[in-house]
Structure formats: structure tokens, C-alpha cells
């Protein structure tokens, strides 16, 4: 076990896969120099320019090339410097790569990994701070993972590279600098589609992913009235229904904490499934704690307010438990 930062866990996972499988190669803008978050630092020196390929600023070309190379049996790991940059190239993944296995009746498969820095909190403004998991929903064939710790970064990235279908891995930029213990090697690999139970409690189940794992944990530590099963989904597509349903069946209450805007968030799907399966067994209505339906603001105080913070999550949960009803979000009543 080694203590490392999340960005170093990225480097370690890439390095281990490059070493163990000659069909793995990396491709993206400025990955040779390590990029703005130093998440590929040192790899070009270790593996050379044939396996760590710096590309022009041409996302459509290099994402599409990733699809094509993957269909030919390579295992490309394509980096989008910021997840928003995939916007100009999305067709290559969601309309092309995602459907190759299906269209070819299994003759082709696309073992492609797409890594991207995502998430708010560092003042990058509305075009460089989104999570954008919504863009990948509804395209059968794609998996989506969001690590929350150095260990899950290492374990999920290695699984993504080994997957025989496209996997998008959203690396939260505010977590790159966080440290944690990491088991490397085969024992450190985390399967796609498996949630992690972070804490066990009795009053409610809190479903989280990425940054909100930490928000929810901090919220629970602010008080001593209630305790929760906090579940880190780790994989959003496909998400771990078994673990979530089992927990909510035990606690009878579901709260979901999401970093993105309220409308269209991933929590709607979790909530819908839980209601369908546990109808009549819930003690309170499922409750989603999210950001408002507005772009991410730049100014520091507003960005802090925009994201669900531990104090807000704690107060929302305490009110839900006290009243048995979903409390209104903070932005309700703010004149717009």
C-alpha cells in the first residue's frame, strides 16, 4: 500500500496498464508535458512517443481515431483535457463507437477509454467546470465512472482500460490533489458497476458519487442525531442497483447528493428505480440534493453556494427526518 495523490493514481494506473498490455496507448492534447493537472506526468519519458501520443487540438480527429484503433484491437486511452472539449467530437463516441458492437453483431468491439478532467469548485467558469455525465446517458454501449479517491481512481481506470466497450472516466479536478492509500496491482482493481459502502448507519441511505461522497461524509460528521449508509456509486452507468436497493430496504429512506443541476440529474433514475422496487416500504419520499438549474458561476462565494456543501446537506437531511417531507432547496424563493 502506498500513499499517493489522486493525480498520481492516474499516472500509476496508466503506467501499469501500459506495462502489462502492449495494445494500450495514450492519446491527447499536451499529455506528453503532463497537462494542466499533471495527470500524465513522466509517461512519455517512460514509454516513448509511440505510446504516449501528443495530438493537435483536434478532438473529433483523435477521439474518432481512438474508436477506429480500438475496433482494430488496440486499447487507446484518449484524454479530453476538460470534459467540455468532447462537445465538438461527441458523434464519434455516442453515435459511432457506442454502436459498433451492436451494428457489427459483435464482429467489432471498441475497448476505448476516455479520460477527462471534470467538475466544479476551482473557479474555472461555466465552460470548464461541468460534470456532464448527462451527455453519456441514453447511449447504450457506454459505461461511465467517476472516482472519488486515489484508490478508486486507480482501480476504476485500470478496469476501464481492460473493458471491451467504451468507458468514460470523469476525473474530478478538485480531487486530483487529494491524498490517500492505494493498493496497486491486481488487488487494487475495482470492477465497473460496483458501488462502495463508505459508512454504515441506520436512519437513511445517502447515494453519492465523485465529489459528493466527501460532501455527504462531512455532512454526517457535523451532527450526531442520525447515521447513514453512505454509498459511493463509483460507476454511474451502469449503476449498482443491488447495493442501493439492499441499503434502502434496510433504512427506509433515500437521499441522493448530486453535484450537477437539479433537472435531468442522475439521481432521478436512482430515485425512480428505488420507488418502483420499494413502493410502500419507504418512510419518507426520496430526496435529491443538487445544484440549481443555472450555469456554474465564477465568483468564489457564488460557486461555493452553488454546489451542495456539507452544512446544507446536513440541514436538508435533518429537516427531512424531522418533518417527513422533502425540504425546499436553498434557491427556492430567491428572486430571479
Amino acid at each position, binding site marked *: 500500500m502506498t500513499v499517493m495523490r489522486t493525480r498520481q493514481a492516474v499516472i500509476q494506473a496508466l503506467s501499469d496498464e501500459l506495462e502489462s498490455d502492449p495494445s494500450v496507448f495514450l492519446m491527447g492534447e499536451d499529455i506528453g508535458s503532463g497537462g494542466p493537472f499533471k495527470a500524465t506526468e513522466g509517461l512519455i519519458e517512460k514509454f516513448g512517443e509511440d505510446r504516449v501520443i501528443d495530438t493537435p487540438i483536434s478532438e473529433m*480527429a483523435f477521439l474518432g481515431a481512438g474508436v477506429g484503433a480500438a475496433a482494430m484491437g488496440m486499447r487507446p486511452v484518449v484524454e479530453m483535457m476538460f470534459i467540455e472539449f468532447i462537445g465538438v467530437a461527441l458523434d464519434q463516441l455516442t453515435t459511432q463507437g457506442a454502436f459498433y458492437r451492436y451494428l457489427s453483431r459483435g464482429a467489432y468491439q471498441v475497448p476505448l477509454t476516455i479520460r477527462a478532467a471534470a467538475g466544479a469548485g476551482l473557479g474555472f467558469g461555466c465552460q470548464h467546470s461541468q460534470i456532464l455525465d448527462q451527455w453519456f446517458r441514453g447511449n447504450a454501449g457506454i459505461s461511465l465512472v467517476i472516482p472519488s479517491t486515489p484508490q478508486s481512481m486507480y482501480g476504476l481506470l485500470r478496469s476501464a482500460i481492460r473493458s471491451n466497450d467504451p468507458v468514460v472516466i470523469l476525473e474530478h479536478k478538485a480531487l486530483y490533489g487529494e491524498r490517500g492509500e492505494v493498493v496497486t496491482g491486481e488487488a487494487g482493481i475495482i470492477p465497473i458497476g460496483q458501488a462502495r459502502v463508505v459508512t454504515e448507519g441506520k436512519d437513511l441511505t445517502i447515494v453519492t458519487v465523485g465529489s459528493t461522497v466527501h460532501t455527504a461524509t462531512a455532512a454526517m460528521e457535523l451532527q450526531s442525531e442520525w447515521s447513514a449508509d453512505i454509498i459511493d456509486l463509483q460507476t454511474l452507468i451502469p449503476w449498482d442497483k443491488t447495493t442501493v436497493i439492499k441499503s434502502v430496504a434496510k433504512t427506509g429512506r433515500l437521499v441522493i447528493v448530486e453535484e450537477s443541476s437539479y433537472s435531468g440529474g442522475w439521481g432521478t433514475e436512482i430515485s425512480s428505480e428505488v420507488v418502483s422496487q420499494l413502493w410502500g416500504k419507504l418512510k419518507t419520499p426520496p430526496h435529491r440534493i443538487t445544484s440549481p438549474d443555472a450555469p456554474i*458561476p465564477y*465568483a468564489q462565494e457564488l460557486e461555493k453556494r452553488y454546489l451542495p456543501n456539507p452544512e446544507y446537506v446536513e440541514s436538508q437531511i435533518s429537516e427531512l427526518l424531522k418533518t417527513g417531507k422533502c425540504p425546499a432547496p436553498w434557491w427556492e424563493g430567491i428572486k430571479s
Partner: protein
Amino acid sequence: MTTSLKRREKLNTEIGRLERLLEIRAVEESIQTLYNDGHVRGSTHLAIGQEAVSVAIASVLRPTDIVTCTYRGHATALALGVSPEGVLGEICGRVIGCSGGMGGSMHLMDASVGLMPTFAIVGAGLPVAAGVALAAKIKKNDSVALTIFGDGSTNIGAFHETLNMASILKLPIVFVIENNLYGEYTRINLSTPISDLADRADSYAMRKEIVDGQDVDAVMKSVSAAVDYARAGNGPSLIEAKTYRYSGHSRSDPATYRTPGELDEWKKRDPLDIAAEKLISQGVLTASELQQMKSDTSSRVTQAIEVVLASEGPSLESLMQHVSEKRN
């Protein structure tokens, strides 16, 4: 405070243009200190070394013409007329910022002088500028669109699609490449197989010109010809301004990949020095007047910083405003 339009008018004289060059440099140089003091978040992309292109463009265009530009947009915003308070206020997330503190360094705007919110995605400003030009053509309103972008953008699909469509529709648009030799962290020869990017116009049967981007007068001449050509209904032009970025791509880039000596070579052709020396040799300006001008500019920027730091952040309500016309 002087309006952006009034500030724009100051570019009508050579002295006014030199003052603006000095102001842009002083503003850009103040940003690192503001960052170190914790007032700036996220990233910033400086245009030190490239000031002449923006000042020339702003001097040629009418305030009713529309500009789209990139996240490396502080210089363009200041040149077009946005005040130092407006630019630095935005970079520091204050309500007096030109986007009310909601956008940050990469999202500057001022509708009164034709600056659309600057684009943080490489190449994204080109298709939008084509739409601006299309509207001008449909409305027959005599406006021209001008889009400024870096050499890196010329490898994005949107560049090629927009040039082709602008050419076939004969849109009143001017494409200006600021070729500063680096796309993010990568030298141009490693990303692009040609060195004169203007040549890409040939594929789209488009008028083209290469210009010395360090010389305000040269860029003005070139942009002026292209704008007149567009305004007369002849269609688009592609201008390549050869220039250089003194700083790294963004705040987190120390630019260690440069060839040793390259920066010093370019500094010998500094756009501010070229403009000042021209005026001194013509007898329009003395060396001591230039010194005075520099120190006046520096105090003006210091004052602007004081105003910015004394001003408030945007209100909580502003977070929910202007999301759509009517919220559900």
C-alpha cells in the same frame, strides 16, 4: 467612469493606440500578483507580446461591428474599449466586472463595443461569427464580423467548416489567426504540417494575407483592407498575424518547452517598442514623454486594482438571473 465607447474613440490617434498598448501590458502584468494574493481563481491566459493585433483590430472596426475571440481575450477586451476595472473586475469575480463576475477571465464581454462573450472552447467562436455575418448580410446592415483565434484553432473541424461556408455564402467576415507559434503547450511544427497558416484559405478560394503581428500599423492596414472588402459585399478574408506569446499557455504552464533564446529574439521585436520607436523617430513623441506615459499608465492600472479590490462580489440573486427569459 469613461464609457467603453469613449475609450474606443481614443484609438483614433497614434498616441492613443500606444497608450492602449501600454495599458494592456500593465494590466496583463498585474494579474500574476492578483493571483498570488488570492483574488484570481481557475486559470488565466495572458496575451503579453500579442497586444498589437488586438489594438489594430479595435482601431479599424466600427463599434457596431462584432468581434468573437478566445479565452486569451484580456487584450482584445481592453483594446475594444472595456476598462481595466471591467477586465480586472471580471478576473477577480467582482460585480463591476464586464460580465458581472459570473464569467471570469475566459468570459469577457461588452455589447456596447461589439464584444460577444469570449469563448473558452478552442474554435468555438468561428461558427458563431459566421452567424453574425450571416445576420448582417440578411439585414443588409453594413456590419462586419471579425473573429480572432489562435494557430491551434486551425486544426479544429469548426475552422474548416466555417471557412468553407463563409466563402460559399460570401459572408462579411474577417478571420484573424494570431499565430503565436504555440497551441497550448505544443509548438506549431509538432501539430501542423505547414508554417504559413494563411495558405489554408486556398482550399476555400478565400482572400488571404500574412502580416507582421508585432506592428500595429501593418496589422491595421491588413485588417482595414479585409474589412472594406467584406463591407463591400465581396466576402471573407483570412489574415494570419505572425506574433508571439511571452507567457505560457495558462497560469499553470511555465513554458519550459521553448527553444532557449527564442523568447529573447521575439522581445527584440516587442510590439510596444516598435510602436513607440516609430513615434519617437517621427518626432511625435519624446523619450521623456514616453516615460511619463508609462508611469501614468501604471498608476492608472494601480488605481483600477484598488477600485476592483474595494468592490463587492455578485449577489446571490444574480446566480439565478438571466438563465432563461422566463423560468418555470
